[in-house]
């Protein structure tokens, strides 16, 4: 008897110590955000400091589904295309849009619906052909052509590039698309309406050129493997056996117009899907850059190490409240739910990976106007307040005429989402007496399906941006919109967002203000969604690797500025 009690105590103290270890790790995480200054602020001054072998070993967490730029929908495709090919513009190390295949930034007409882009004349395909305006026209038309079955073509161009929607639905010819070659090196792009973020928008891989002669010669084999690809970027792919390959090799492309600024000669990339194994390989020196590591247990092994790079990525997670449910239609109930989750404890103690608590929809360090973050000048919306929550909750319940409320909560089936979902359940049930929450952990695709069918009360979801503008988040909840799917409708919010899309398109400051006001209505006044956290990225990078650049949308990283030191 005595013995069993002792062992129980032992088990308890072990569990407790694990929990404490987790807590202390979380505390340390705070304020260690070293975003976007790794490497760059330590420029390589002497050439002699460079290692003789400029070869980089990288682990990625997934295969490349496609290398056909008009078919890509996945960050692995975008990152590799960004290394191997090049569009008119690209993102530099500071996330600024800079000319790449273009000579200069575009020229606009008066109402900013027409862009003229001059292309540089020294850009070449790896087979020696010059990169011309016709290559862009061909790729854009291919992307929107219904026969190509591109998912992102209609998604990106629809409502933005002239006639894109009509062509996607087969009601117009591809030649009617709003892109024309005025001569070999001049492009004219016609938009449906002025788009303030058009420059960063067209850095996207979908808008890259394609060599018509080459693509048509390959036919169905185009982009099937490394042999059926044509590079015009800083690197060329010399080994890749197709979408199922778990290994690929990039080598410096000597015909690239900026080749003299590319130091790396070779990048070996392998797929590793197990984070602990990736960390082991890093420790054994077999890899220089690991995939993103999200698990607190692994990150803690490297806490404080200079190898660990951490930055906030613009992925935001929130809880949707389906207003088809009568109880959730009640504003007091929604506000009570929003006010009763301790998000800080969630990110510090449960996730413990550097993610930050969010009381906003547009992420931090993502959208800038004149160098000022969108988040500057906005107050936090609906910070946790247990007393207020309880008051609103009771008021809401009496308005509904009930004493108890049972809701379902659709969450993810991954380890991370299971722990964070049960934390949220605990918070809500503790702070809102009479609430009974049933968590339903489902795989990603099924969660999307239930969201589309509006078959949920509460649903945990997230979003990553497609271009560097608050609009990529802000237009999600428009009345009747394809992403709303929670029966939310606010005339005021709609008005502000639509104004930002149209009338205010050319007035940056006013547009910014309108979007900030719309965000306040959505989150504070209407409590339509409960933002939870903004995710942080943790990766291990060998300290000899300098000039690693990460991006907020499109490709995850750029390799072209990397140098390896001795």
């Amino acid at each position: 008897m005595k013995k069993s009690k002792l062992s129980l105590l032992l088990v308890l103290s072990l569990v407790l110590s694990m929990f404490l270890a987790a807590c202390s790790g979380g505390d340390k995480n705070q304020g260690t955000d070293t975003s976007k200054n790794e490497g760059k602020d330590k420029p390589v001054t002497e050439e002699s400091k460079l290692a003789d072998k400029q070869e980089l070993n990288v682990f990625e967490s997934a295969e490349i589904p496609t290398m056909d730029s008009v078919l890509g929908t996945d960050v692995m495709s975008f990152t590799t295309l960004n290394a191997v090919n090049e569009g008119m513009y690209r993102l530099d190390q500071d996330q600024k849009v800079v000319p790449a295949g273009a000579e200069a930034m575009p020229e606009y007409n008066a109402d900013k619906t027409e862009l003229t882009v001059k292309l540089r004349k020294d850009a070449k395909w790896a087979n020696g052909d010059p990169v011309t305006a016709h290559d862009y026209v061909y790729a854009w038309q291919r992307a929107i052509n219904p026969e190509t079955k591109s998912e992102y073509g209609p998604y990106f161009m629809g409502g933005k590039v002239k006639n894109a929607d009509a062509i996607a639905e087969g009601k117009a010819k591809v030649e009617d698309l709003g892109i024309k070659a005025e001569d070999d090196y001049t492009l004219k792009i016609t938009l449906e309406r002025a788009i303030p973020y058009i420059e960063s928008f067209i850095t996207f891989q979908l808008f890259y050129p394609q060599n018509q002669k080459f693509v048509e010669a390959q036919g169905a084999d185009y982009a099937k493997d490394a042999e059926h690809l044509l590079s015009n970027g800083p690197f060329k792919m010399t080994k890749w056996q197709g979408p199922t390959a778990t290994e690929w090799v990039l080598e410096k492309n000597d015909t690239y117009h900026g080749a003299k600024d590319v130091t790396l000669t070779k990048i070996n990339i392998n797929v590793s899907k197990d984070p602990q194994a990736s960390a082991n390989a890093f420790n054994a020196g077999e890899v220089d850059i690991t995939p993103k590591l999200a698990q607190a247990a692994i990150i803690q092994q490297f806490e404080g190490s200079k190898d660990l790079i951490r930055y906030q990525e613009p992925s935001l997670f929130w809880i949707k409240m389906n207003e088809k449910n009568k109880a959730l239609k009640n504003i007091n109930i929604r506000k009570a739910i929003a006010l009763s989750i301790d998000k800080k404890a969630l990110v510090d103690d449960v996730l413990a990976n550097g993610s930050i608590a969010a009381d906003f929809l547009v992420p931090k360090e993502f959208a800038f106007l004149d160098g000022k973050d969108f988040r500057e000048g906005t107050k936090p919306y609906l910070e946790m307040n247990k007393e207020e929550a309880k008051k609103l909750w009771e008021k809401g319940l009496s308005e509904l005429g009930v004493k108890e409320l049972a809701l379902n909560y659709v969450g993810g089936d991954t380890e991370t989402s299971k722990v964070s979902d049960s934390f949220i359940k605990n918070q809500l049930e503790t702070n809102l007496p009479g609430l009974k929450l049933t968590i339903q952990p489902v795989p990603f695709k099924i969660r999307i399906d239930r969201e589309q069918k509006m078959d949920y009360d509460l649903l945990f979801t997230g979003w990553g941006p497609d271009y560097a503008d608050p609009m990529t988040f802000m237009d999600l909840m428009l009345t009747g919109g394809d992403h709303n799917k929670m029966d939310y409708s606010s005339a005021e919010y709609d008005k502000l967002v639509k104004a930002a899309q149209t009338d205010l398109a050319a007035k940056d400051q006013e547009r910014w203000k309108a979007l900030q006001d719309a965000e306040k209505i959505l989150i504070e006044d209407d409590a339509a969604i409960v933002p939870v956290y903004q995710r942080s990225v943790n990766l291990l990078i060998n300290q000899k690797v300098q000039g690693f650049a990460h991006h907020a949308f499109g490709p995850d990283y750029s390799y072209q500025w990397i140098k390896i030191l001795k």
Partner: protein
Amino acid sequence: MAKYLLQRFIYMIITLFIVASITFFLMKLIPGSPFNTFQKLSVVQQNLLLEKYGLKDPLPVQYFNYMKSLVMGDLGVSFQFNNTPVTELLGNRIGPSAILGLQAMVLGAIVGIFLGTISALKQNTWIDYGSTFIAVIGKSIPSFIFAGLLQFYIAVKLGWFPVMLWKGPEYTVLPTIALAMFPISIAARFMRTEMIDVLGSDYITLAKAKGASFWQISVKHALRNALIPVVTVMGPLAVSLMTGSLVIEKIFGIPGIGEQFVKSISTNDYPVIMGTNLLFAALFVVIILVVDILYGIIDPRIRISGGKAK
């Protein structure tokens, strides 16, 4: 024999047809769509895509179309791997899994049969307890823990083998050992039980009485007969090892089929689910046939073709 094989072959075709039909309708019950970007597309765009891939047809029509192309040998194209033909995908991925599975199987069978035999021969000695201990460990420790330990101590700390990836024979050592733990324990347990049983039977006593040596008795008379149950379990086990282990492949970064199969289900990649399932089913029926034929070779008392007794 030829008649027997032909008969079995027809049964195999029928089995595969039933497996294909059941899988087809079961997988259509999984909610969700096979497209990665459905969340981002408008309803109009979604419908256009579904139509293009024939996913809007009524289920019986889809089933008929699939079966028709299946008979022609066309397994369709993968959704998650952007239109890669399923046959190509399976071809690329089955290799590493099969090599790893075979190696683990051979290692597992040799070590397991050896351990089981010596424990039976030295029943209730420390040798017996020792090998039973190994068998229990092999069965009860999850493979991801064992693989993780091997990786950390043998590869990271000692540096004897590469940590991960699949680039040559030395890369296969650690995953093979990790994967072999389970077949070792299974083979050892069955071998020990059966061997003890056989050693107690009359013909062994007779052989002893005739003055046959210890080795003659144990190897020639006992071991061969004791193999029947081991072969029975090892057959299907070989299929499950060769068709890939999600955990081992993930930890050692092996481009095998195990992870692919699981992912195809969670991403609603219908053609890949069908293709992989059919491949596994085909391997299974073939292995069962092989096991049945092996019975006759190992133990002449078993007749497979129902031939006349001599």
